[in-house]
């Protein structure tokens, strides 16, 4: 079946621009996660959705970062007024179960590489 897809795969933004990154999770997956992967580092947790509810946004680095999943499927990560330190690969992952009550495998998309000039 189809895996997690993300678009665009690459995004170049000028400092100060707003960007929107899209994630299509595996159909039927309840839980959705966003991670940020800086160059040479492992992914770091940003936020977690259970269906349309954003249950944890503790990893979002600033109030310029905003994520939504209005219908419980597709999710968008928005970064306002981008800064150079926002340059990273943004990974989306989904999981079948309610991740608040059970730990299950997270399936990752290919990521969006954001470069802020």
């Amino acid at each position: 079946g189809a895996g997690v897809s993300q678009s665009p795969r690459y995004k170049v933004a000028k400092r100060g621009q707003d960007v929107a990154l899209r994630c299509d999770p595996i159909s039927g997956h309840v839980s959705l996660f966003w991670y940020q992967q800086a160059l040479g580092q492992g992914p770091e947790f940003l936020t977690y959705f259970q269906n349309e509810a954003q249950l944890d946004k503790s990893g979002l680095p600033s109030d310029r970062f905003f994520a939504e999943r209005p219908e419980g499927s597709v999710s968008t990560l928005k970064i306002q007024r981008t800064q150079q330190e926002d340059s990273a690969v943004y990974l989306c992952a989904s999981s079948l179960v309610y991740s608040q009550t059970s730990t299950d495998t997270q399936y990752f998309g290919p990521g969006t590489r954001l470069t802020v000039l």
Partner: protein
Amino acid sequence: AQSVTQPDIHITVSEGASLELRCNYSYGATPYLFWYVQSPGQGLQLLLKYFSGDTLVQGIKGFEAEFKRSQSSFNLRKPSVHWSDAAEYFCAVVPATSGTYKYIFGTGTRLKVLA
């Protein structure tokens, strides 16, 4: 603080040689453990996972990992490496408590395979 350590940033092996990638964690209790592989331009692909039971876990592509509680380790092994195994490998842990979903990743080990 909870942490995951992958001590080797880069590893180079010859094709056909055996491979072991190290992963150590620091937690009070046994966490759930994962190994993922990331090829250039690709997302993370799950190789194997350990939740409980047999401490030797078999995964895809001929990989296996052994959980050693006494050493807080979950090392990844492969008896004979193929050129296509060249990639970056990430160990991840999740504390084994209900409601925990934040994967904590190591910094990765980049594997180079010599022909």
